[in-house]
C-alpha cells in the first residue's frame, strides 16, 4: 500500500520548531551526493578562474549557469519516479520529433546544426536525449520480466540507435556516443547474458567500417587520423594533443601551483577553458590533485550506484544505474582524449568545463537520482 507520509502523521504531533525541519526533510535532496557535487563545482570554478586568465566576466557567466543548473536539479528531484515513468514515452517522443525538426528546419548550411531556435531561447534537443534515451529503454524493459527476451533487446536497440544516428548526423559524434552509451548501459544492467554482450561487441567491431565511411564527416575522420599520429598535423588538432600532453606531463607529482601553469597561462594550450580544462588542472595541481579529483568523481559514481542498488523497482534501478555509468563515461572520455588515450571527440569534463548545456543536463540527471533515492524512503514509511 502506498501511503502519503504527511497524512500518516497526526496533526497534533507537530512541534513548533518542526516547520523548518520538515521543509528540509520534505525537500527531496540526497545530501551526500549534493555535497560531492558542490565540492566538484567548487574545484571547477577554481580551475576555470586560472584557465580563463583570471577573467571575471567568464566566471560570472559560469556562475549564472551553475545557479540555473542547481535550480533544475532541485526541481527535478521533487518529481516522483512514478511521474517520471508516466511521462517517459512522451518525453522521448517529443525529443525524437525535435531532433528531426533540427535536421529539417535547422539551417541547411554546411556547418553542424544542433540548435533549435524557439524564439525566446535556443534549445539543443540532443541534450534532452541524454536523459530521454535511458529513461525510455528503462521504461520499456521494466514492463516485463528481466532479463529481457531477444525481441525486446532488439526494440531497445532501435530506441537507442534512432536518436543516436540523428545526433551523429548533425554532426555531433561526442553527444551521439554519450546518448548511445546511456541506452546501452540500461541493457547491460538488465542482466542480459555475457554471451549476448560479446556478440554485440563483435557486431560493433564489424560495423566500424560502415561508421567510418558513411557516418563520419571529413573533419571527424581527420580527428581520428590525427589521434593516431599527432605529429602529422602540428598546426591543427595534433597541436591540441601535443600541447595538452606537455601540460599534463610537466605538471609532475605536485603541479606548478594554482595560476602558475606556463602551458596554460602562456596561450600554448588551446580550448583550455572548455574541453581541455583537465590539462590546466593537471599542470597546476599535479598527480596529487588528479588523484583527489578522480576520488571525488569516484565518490559520486559510487553514491549513484548505491542509490541504484537500493531502488525498489526495475525502472528506477535501471535508470539510476545507467545515468551514473554515463557520467563516468563522460569523465573517462574527456580525460582520455586530453591525455592522448582517445581521439578528440568534443566531450567536456563534467561539471568542470566551461559551458552551459551539458551542466544543466547532468544536474537534471542527478536530480533524477535524488528523486529515486528520496522518494523511496517515503514509500518505506
Amino acid at each position, binding site marked *: 500500500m502506498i501511503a502519503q507520509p504527511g497524512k500518516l502523521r497526526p496533526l497534533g504531533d507537530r512541534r513548533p520548531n518542526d516547520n523548518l525541519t520538515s521543509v528540509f526533510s520534505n525537500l527531496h535532496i540526497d545530501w551526500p551526493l549534493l555535497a560531492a557535487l558542490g565540492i566538484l563545482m567548487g574545484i571547477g570554478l577554481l580551475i576555470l578562474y586560472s584557465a580563463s586568465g583570471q577573467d571575471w566576466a567568464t566566471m560570472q557567466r559560469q556562475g549564472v549557469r551553475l545557479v540555473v543548473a542547481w535550480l533544475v536539479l532541485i526541481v527535478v528531484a521533487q518529481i516522483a519516479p512514478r511521474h517520471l515513468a508516466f511521462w517517459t514515452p512522451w518525453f522521448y517522443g517529443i525529443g525524437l520529433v525535435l531532433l528531426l525538426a533540427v535536421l529539417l528546419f535547422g539551417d541547411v548550411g554546411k556547418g553542424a546544426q544542433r540548435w533549435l531556435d524557439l524564439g525566446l531561447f535556443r534549445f539543443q534537443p540532443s541534450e534532452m536525449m541524454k536523459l530521454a534515451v535511458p529513461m525510455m529503454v528503462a521504461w520499456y524493459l521494466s514492463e516485463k520480466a528481466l532479463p529481457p527476451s531477444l525481441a525486446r533487446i532488439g526494440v531497445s536497440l532501435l530506441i537507442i540507435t534512432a536518436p543516436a544516428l540523428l545526433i551523429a548526423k548533425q554532426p555531433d559524434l561526442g553527444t551521439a556516443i554519450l546518448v548511445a552509451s546511456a541506452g546501452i548501459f540500461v541493457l547491460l544492467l538488465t542482466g542480459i547474458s555475457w554471451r549476448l554482450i560479446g556478440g554485440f561487441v563483435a557486431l560493433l567491431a564489424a560495423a566500424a567500417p560502415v561508421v567510418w565511411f558513411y557516418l563520419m564527416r571529413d573533419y571527424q575522420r581527420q580527428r581520428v587520423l590525427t589521434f593516431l599520429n599527432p605529429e602529422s598535423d602540428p598546426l591543427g588538432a595534433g597541436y591540441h594533443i601535443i600541447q595538452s600532453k606537455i601540460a599534463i606531463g610537466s605538471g*609532475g607529482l605536485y603541479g606548478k601551483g594554482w595560476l602558475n601553469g606556463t602551458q596554460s597561462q602562456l596561450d600554448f594550450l588551446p580550448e583550455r577553458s572548455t574541453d581541455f580544462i583537465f590539462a590546466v588542472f593537471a599542470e597546476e595541481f599535479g598527480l596529487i590533485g588528479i588523484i583527489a579529483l578522480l576520488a571525488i568523481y569516484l565518490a559520486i559514481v559510487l553514491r549513484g550506484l548505491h542509490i541504484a542498488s537500493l531502488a525498489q523497482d526495475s525502472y528506477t534501478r535501471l535508470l539510476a544505474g545507467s545515468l551514473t555509468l554515463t557520467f563516468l563515461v563522460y569523465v573517462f572520455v574527456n580525460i582520455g582524449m586530453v591525455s592522448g588515450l582517445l581521439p578528440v571527440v568534443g566531450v567536456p569534463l563534467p561539471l568542470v568545463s566551461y559551458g552551459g548545456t551539458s551542466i544543466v543536463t547532468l544536474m537534471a540527471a542527478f536530480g533524477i537520482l535524488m528523486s529515486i533515492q528520496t522518494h523511496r524512503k517515503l514509500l518505506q514509511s
Partner: protein
Amino acid sequence: MANPETLKDHIKETALFSRRIVAAVVVIVLLLGILLARMVYLQVIDHQHYTTLSQNNRVSVLPIAPPRGLIFDRNGIVLAQNQPSFTLELVPEKIDDLQQTLARLAEIIRIEPSDLARFHKLRKRRSAFKAVPLRFRLNEEEVARFSARGHLFPGVEIQARLTRQYPQGALAVHALGYVGRISEEELQSLDSSNYRGTTHIGKTGIEKYYEDQLHGTVGFRRVETSAQGRIIRVLEEQPPVPGLNLYLELDARVQAVAEAALGERRGAVVAIDTRTGGVIALASMPGFDPNPFVNGIDSKAYARLANSREQPLFNRAIRGRYPPGSTIKPLIGLAALEYGVVRRDTRIHCPGWYTLPNDDHRYRDWKKTGHGLMSLRGAIRESCDVYFYDLARQLGIDRFHEYLSRFGLGQRTGIDLFGETRGLLPSREWKRRVKGEAWYPGETLITGIGQGFNLASPLQLAEATATLANGGVRYRPRLAHYFQDQRSGDIRYLAPQESGRVPVDNPDNWRYIIDTMKDVVHNLRGTAHRIARGARYTIAGKTGTAQVFGIKQDEEYVQEDVELHLRDHALFIAFAPIEAPRIAVAVIVENGGSGGGVAAPIARKVLDQFLLGENS
C-alpha cells in the same frame, strides 16, 4: 495477493542487478585505473621529458595564409585581385604613455571614437606583448605620413595584409560573387588546419564554387619566443602554396556591353559559346559593388540593397523564373515537324482567335485582326499564336514535355554556380503531383505559346538556343575556362562537357526551323527585322513577349494603361552566325514590353561586340 512467481522473479532480478552493479564497479575501477596509470606515465615516468618540452616550449607555430588565386576574364582582364591593405597596430607593452601616443597619432591619422573603443576592448583581451589593431584600411597618404614619423612612435607599426578587391566594381558581380569573413558556421565544416590564418572565404558566385582551387594551402613559420611569448627569431618556414589563378570563359568587354545595354532596366543577358558551353556573358541588372562586402558591409547599406524593390542582390540570370513566351515557338515547331504532327507546308487560317471544340472560350492571338493564312515559317516569323494553339493541341502535352526537356528545360543546366533554378516544364505528372489536378486541354494551348505554367531562367533559354544552333549537341554551361598554377605556370584546362544530345530525325527540319528564325531577323515581316540593319553576319532569332498578368476575355491590353511592374516581359533569343554558329544569347527585360523592340537590340549589341569586337 502476490503471485509467488513474480515475487521469485523480483528477487532474481534484484540479485541479477546487484551482480551487474558489482561488475560495473570492477569496470569503473579498471577505467579509473587506466587513467591513473596514464597520468603516472605522463607525470612521473616521462615528467622530465615533458618538463624540458615545456621549458623549451618557446617554439610556436604560426600559420601563413596562402594568397588567394586571381580571377581573369578570357582576355586576361583582372576581375578579382589581392591588394595590400594597411593596418595600424600598437603593442601596449612597448609604449610608455599610451594616452599620449594615441593623442599624437590622432594628429597624423584619422582616428574615430569607434576605432578607439574597439582598440581598448581588444587591448583588455590580449597579452600586453601582442599587437592590437587601432585603424584598418589606411590610405596611402596616411601610410606615407606615418612612415615619415615612424621612429617617433616606438611600439606602433603598420601591418600589410592582402585583401580581396574587385577592380571592375559591379561588373559581372552575379557571376563572380565575392569573398567575406568566415562565419562561425562555415568554421565548423572547414578543414580547420588549412584555414588557420585565413580570414576570408568565397560567399557567392565563382568565388564560392571554386573555393577549394582558389584558396591554396596554408604555410607555417616556427618561431622561437621568449618566456613571455615574444618572437625572438624564425627557426623554420614553410611557405604557403598560393591558390590557383582562374581564367574564365567570360569576356569582360561583352559583359560590359550587355550590362550597359540593359542600362537602368531590370533584366538579364546570358551569352554562351555554342562550341564549348563557355559562358561569355552573364549579366543580371541591377547589380551591386561587391567590394564593401569583403570586410563586412555596414548594415544600413546592406538593408538598402536587400530591401530594394529592384532586387539587385537577386541573380536573375540563373535564378530568375520567367515565362519564355514565344521564344519557345521554334522548339515547339521543331518538335511538331520531328514527330510528324505537321508538314513544312501545312497552312492554317488565323482569324485572330482560336477555340477548342465544345468550348466557347476564345484563345486570342496577340494580333487582334489575325494573321490570315499562315505556314509554319510565317507563324514563327510573325509569331502567330493561333498557329501554335493548333499545333500544341495536335502535339499534346506529353510529347511537348518529352521534346523540350531534351533541350534542358525544366532541369538545372549544371553551370558552375550555386543556386540555379530548375525552371518549370509542366507535364501531366507534375500537375497531378503538385496541384493534385488533371491536365486540361486548354492548358496545352497556353503552354504551346510559352505561357501558362512554363518557366525558364535566362541561362536555360541561352543553353536551349545553343543546343538548337549545335544541331542537338548540349554542353554544360561553364564560366571557368582553365586554372593556372601561380608558381610553375602550369595550366589545367576544363574540357567542354557534353550534357546530352537531342536526337535528329530529319536534318532538313532543323535547317527549316533555323531558316524561319533567320526570317525573324532578316525578313522585313520578321518581328525583329529592325536589328538586321547593318549586320555584317547572319542572325537567327526569336522574339518573345511574356504576360505578367492575365487579362479578361473581353478586355484589351493597352500598354500605357498598365502599371509599370505589370507590363509584359520582353524576351529575345538568338544565335550567330547562322552558317557556323559561335554564340547564343538570351535576353530578358522585365516589364520591357516588346521583345522585338526592346530585347532584340540588346542582343544585337552583345553579338556585335563578341563577333566583331565593336563597341556600338
